[in-house]
Every structure is written in structure tokens, then in C-alpha cells.
């Protein structure tokens, strides 16, 4: 048993790509003994915009959560910029699904964004003025500064999503993991988010996005990970996002396949 673990550790040291912002090695995740992710091996290229795509229940959110130690891994290991998540926490920004919280909570948009600064504030210290200023700046970057003092339940779904993005931005991380930031947002917000993601990428950040709309994948993402309990294919969108791979990922479930094929045929430009 001990021997096994030891071998595992050396394997990890060898197989991780230290220069990658996110390197996953041999990761398996199980809920109640039922595996939801099998043997995930992946190294994200730095400075790119990466879409994680797959059918419902494919384990897209779970993959992100397991990387962030929010869900226990049955096996495998994860490195951010060559270090464990614990060590690299400050340089990783996380945007959870919007539905994961109760938006009726008594807080303003600014209060929520300021939570992104809490990691820099010591225990028992209140939120400082410079934190609030940083939060306001982040709200400005997502075009929400006019709503800073509004109670969060009075924001639209798209605006709430932007507040969550701003909370991750305020952290000024190098790598961002976002769980369905486009879910249930209006067209204006979707456009604003895409612009923001591109700005981040152009600033050298790496952004991984769980995404469910196949039609927009070629337009939004440089790289794509096709996931269905295991990684079906991963790489540059132009090479990997093909009808054959989609068929493998979605199996019989893909009624959208024709649509996607159509998108591909009309020139999978980005």
C-alpha cells in the first residue's frame, strides 16, 4: 500500500508539465463509488481560451471542482503552474455556477465582489477601503459599476453572472476556471463576457470555461476539451472540434450534431 503511494508520487513528479497553468494527471473522481470521471490527463496551454464541452452529466463541473479540491479525487493529481492548488490558490480564480448561491442574500454587488479580496485580508479584519476600491474597479471592468450598491437579488441573471466574474477578476489571478458563465444570460451579457474573456487571454491569462452551447464553441474558444466521463479529445478547436469527435462525445444523444456539422461546414472560424 505504502509502496504503491510512493510510486504514485514519483510518477506525478515526472508526468506533470511544470510550465502548464493547469496540468491534470490520471485523475479519477467518484460519487458514492460510481465514477464520474475516468483517468483524466490534460495540460492546458498557457495564454489560451479553453472551452470544456460535453453532454449533461459528463462531469464538466466535477472536473473543475476536483481540480480546486472541492470534490475529493479518487486518484490522480493536479498542478497549477507546477504547484498544488493549495500553494497556487492566489493565482487561480474560480467562478462557480450562478445557481450555486441564494441571491436573496442581504448583500450588494460590491459586497459580493469584495469577497474576492478576502484572501488578502487577515482573519478578523474588516474589509478595507482599498479592497472596496479594487472591487469597484473590477465591477467597472464588467460594466457593472453603476450597480455597485444594488442588492444582488435585484440584478438580472446576466448581471449576477457579471458580478461573479468581477469577484474572480478582483483576485488578479493567472488562471481562471469558470463554470457555465453563459448559462441563462441575455445576449448583451454574453457579448460582454466574451469580450472580457478575450481581454484576459490577450493579457496572457489562461481561461477554462465550462460551456454547453456547441454552436458558439468555434467562435469563442481557441482550444476545446471534449469530455464525457473521460477526455474524448482535447486540442486546438480547429483540429479537435470535428463531427466525428462530437459524435464520440455525445453518442446517440446528439440531435444537435447536424447543427454542429453545419456550423463546421460554414467555416469553423474563430
Amino acid at each position, binding site marked *: 500500500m505504502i509502496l504503491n503511494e510512493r510510486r504514485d508520487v514519483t510518477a506525478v513528479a515526472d508526468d506533470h508539465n511544470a510550465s502548464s497553468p493547469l496540468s491534470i494527471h490520471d485523475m479519477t473522481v467518484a460519487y458514492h463509488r460510481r465514477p464520474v470521471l475516468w483517468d483524466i490527463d490534460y495540460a492546458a496551454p498557457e495564454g489560451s481560451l479553453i472551452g470544456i464541452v460535453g453532454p449533461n452529466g459528463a462531469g464538466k463541473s466535477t472536473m473543475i471542482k476536483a481540480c480546486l479540491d472541492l470534490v475529493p479525487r479518487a486518484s490522480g493529481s493536479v498542478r497549477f503552474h507546477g504547484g498544488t492548488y493549495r500553494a497556487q490558490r492566489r493565482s487561480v480564480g474560480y467562478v*462557480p455556477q450562478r445557481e450555486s448561491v441564494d441571491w436573496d442574500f442581504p448583500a450588494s454587488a460590491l*459586497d459580493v465582489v469584495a469577497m474576492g479580496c478576502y*484572501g488578502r485580508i487577515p482573519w478578523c479584519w474588516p474589509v478595507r477601503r482599498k479592497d472596496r476600491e479594487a472591487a469597484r474597479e473590477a465591477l467597472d471592468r464588467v460594466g457593472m459599476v453603476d450597480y455597485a450598491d444594488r442588492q444582488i437579488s435585484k440584478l438580472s441573471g446576466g448581471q449576477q453572472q457579471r458580478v461573479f466574474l468581477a469577484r474572480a477578476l478582483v483576485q488578479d489571478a493567472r488562471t481562471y476556471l469558470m463554470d457555465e458563465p453563459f448559462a441563462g444570460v441575455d445576449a448583451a451579457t454574453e457579448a460582454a463576457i466574451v469580450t472580457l474573456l478575450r481581454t484576459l487571454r490577450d493579457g496572457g491569462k489562461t481561461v477554462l470555461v465550462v460551456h454547453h452551447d456547441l454552436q458558439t464553441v468555434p467562435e469563442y474558444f481557441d482550444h476545446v476539451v471534449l469530455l464525457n466521463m473521460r477526455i474524448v479529445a482535447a486540442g486546438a478547436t480547429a483540429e479537435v472540434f470535428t463531427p466525428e469527435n462530437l459524435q464520440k462525445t455525445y453518442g446517440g444523444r446528439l440531435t444537435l450534431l447536424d447543427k454542429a456539422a453545419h456550423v463546421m461546414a460554414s467555416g469553423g472560424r474563430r
Partner: protein
Amino acid sequence: MLRILHMRRVLFPAVVLFIGAGEALGDVGGAMDGILEITTWGKIWRALTLVDHTTRVVVIGTTVLGAAAGVVGTFAYLRKRAMLGDALSHATLPGIALAFVILGEKRLGWMTVGAAVTGVLGVLAVLGLRRVPRVKEDAAIGIVLSVFFGAGLVLMSLIQQMGSGEEAGLRSFIYGKAAAMLTNDAWLIGVSAGVVLVCCVLLFKEFRLICFDQSYASSQGWPVGLIDLLMMGLVVLTTVVGLQAVGMILVVALLIVPAAAARFWTDRLGRMTVAAGVFGALSGWLGSTISAVLPRMPTGAVIVLCTGVLFLMSMILSPHRGVLAGLIRRMRLARRVADQHLLRALAEIEESRGEGTRVEESELWKMRSWSAAGFSRVMGRGQRRGWIDGDGRQCRLTATGRTLAKRVLTNHRLWELYLIRYADIAPSHVDRDADEIEHILSEGLVQELRQALAEETTIPPSPHVAGVGI
């Protein structure tokens, strides 16, 4: 789902209050004699000025307890741990009884320790049971609450059979007996409340974070378990020191009801915490003062009733979230929608028959599903505001009315167009009759729609006027 949550938040305080009312009423008969016998202003005056030592101890003790419970209760309430507090308080009974059995006499300090021990065990049992597949949180709470309380009652009856005659003293923990509070008990409450308040101020940021978004907190490296433990520890402390004053059945009300009431008044966590503390303190003070004036009134139940009155008043009167404000808002909205319907109907008729057309009121009436009373109300309002000229049988738009009616019509058509073009992404909460489109959609989009509206020749007629044959 949201609605169910909301119902639970409203219902639970209501149930607690109901129990409180029952207990208070049970003693009302006796209390009435008391009122007649002694009465009155002198007594009230003595209670208010805290001249009597006993009264002073009880009033100060319960006030401070209420403040602490309100403050820490805010976080428990927002963390959706309100019911867990109920399981906790019921689970203290076996601890109290066991401490008595082991010591063989009534020693308050050790019984409090016993209460805390089994209370914490109860909380842990709930948290553990919740992890078992197929046991949901409400079931876990129900199981622990009733089993622990049952165990406590069995122990109590054993104590009764031992015949030391002290079992009645233990009963005061169930229903509460504030009058028995001694100076030392009040000090204990005071010190505990101080600890609770200081911790809540210091850990405000941490509590806020885990109450709002637990998984984000743990992704940021905050020890969520530890913070949770501290929060539950403060709840346990408040509950245990409050047992004797309010009783284990009702002490949970002090944690939940002030927080629930405070939520009606503000959207900021800081203010909500302060408001809940004030509500709790006010209830404690008012309740103990009332029961000092009316003898034989159970203090705990009266305190809980006071929280209930504050809650009801908050629920009805709050300017933003209150029931009354909501009714008024809905009434205003209904009126505005009716006005707009009338103006739109007239504008559509003018569009086909020319400006200044006189319209039979009966024809107008048929265009909408107005009741007779509703129609005459909306007509009357239109005339009073100078939008419509009418003689009771025929009517037409005035110049002011026409400007307004045209705007309403355009707005309505822009919305229709928007829904036709963008229906798949239309936000669900748009109230298109009542809202000016410019207030909801971006300027660029409205411009685009206006252009489309100008170009488009076949605007689909509104379903309401389809049968009229304009």
C-alpha cells in the same frame, strides 16, 4: 423552489409563535385574577424603573439574551441552519437530566454543561445523518429532535420515580422559568452575550462569506468547517444560557424570529444583524416587563410572543418587502396597466378611423375583459386626468391623452417585436405592459427595434383587438 424556501421561512416562525401563544393562554386565567387583585400603574412603574431586584435581574438578563440571540441568529438564519437550532435545544434535555442523575442534586453549572454536551451531540448527529444517502436534512432534524427529547423525557420520569421531588425544577428547562433567574445566571448570560457579540463582530467577514457561498469560501482556502464550528458554537452557547429563561421549546424562536423580522427592513447584512439584535433585545425587555406586571405569565412565552408581534409588524409594514407595500404596488401596477390598455385601445381605433374619432363606450368595453365596475373606474380616472373626453356614452382622446396613448402604443409594439425577434433569449421577468422598453433593454437594441418597426408593414395585431375588425 424559491417559493418553498420562502414559505418555510415564514411558516416556521409562525409555528413557533403558535406554540408560544398556546402556553401564554394557558396561564391567562390565573393572570387575570392577578391583574384584578393588585393592579396597576404602580406596578408598571416599578417594572419599568427596575426598582425590584428580582425584576431587574430578569429584565436585564432576558434583554441581553435577546440581543445576543438576535445577532448570532442572523447568521444561523442566513446559513439556513435555523431548524438545526431547534434540534439543538431539544437535544439538551437528556444532558440536563443526566447531569442531575449523576450528581444527585440540582447544580446549575453542571446541568448547563450537560445540556451543552448533548446539544452538541445532537447537532453532530444531524450533520452526520445528513450525509447518509436518502436521509434529507428535514428528516435528520426531525429524527434527532424527537429521539433526544424522548430520551430526556424518559430520564425525567426516572428522576421522578427516584422521588427527590426535584423533577419539577428540571421542568423549568423545558418551558422556561425566567423568574427563577438569579444574579449569577444573569451574569452568565451577560458574559456569554459579550462573547457572542465580540465573536460576531470579529468574524463578521468570515461568517458572511460562508453564509453566502460556502464552496467559493473553501476554494479560497478558508477553513469552512472551522468557521462553521465557531458559528454553531456561538449558537450552542446562546441556546444553553437561554434555556432557563425561555425554555428549550421556545429558545429557538429568539434565534430565528428577530432575524426573519430584520430581513424585512434592510438589504445589508450589517444593518440586518444590528436590527435583529435590537429586535431580540426589545422582545426580551418587553416580554419580561409584561410578565413582571402580570403575575403568573410565563416569561419565555411572552417574550416569544413579542418577537412574533415584531415579526408580524415587519412583515406587514416593511416599506420594501412588506405585505402592505406589495399590495399597494400591485394595485398601482394593475391601475397603470388598465390605463394603458384603455389608451392603447383608443389609439388603435384612432389609427384606423382618424384622429378625434368618437367611440361608443360599449364598443370600447367589449375590446377588453373589463368588468362594469372596472371599466367605469378606468374611464373615470382617464377623464379626471384629462386624457379622455366623455359624456357617458361616447368618448374620445384629448390632445394630452393622444400623446400619451401614442407612446403607450409604440412601446407595446416595440415589445411585441422584441419578443418575436428575441423570444428565445427574452428575460423572464420583463413585465412588458408596465415597463417602458427603454428602461429594460439597452439603447442600441431599442434603436434597432424602432428602425425595424418603421420598416415593418405587417405588425401582428394584438390578440386582444383581433376580433374587433379595425
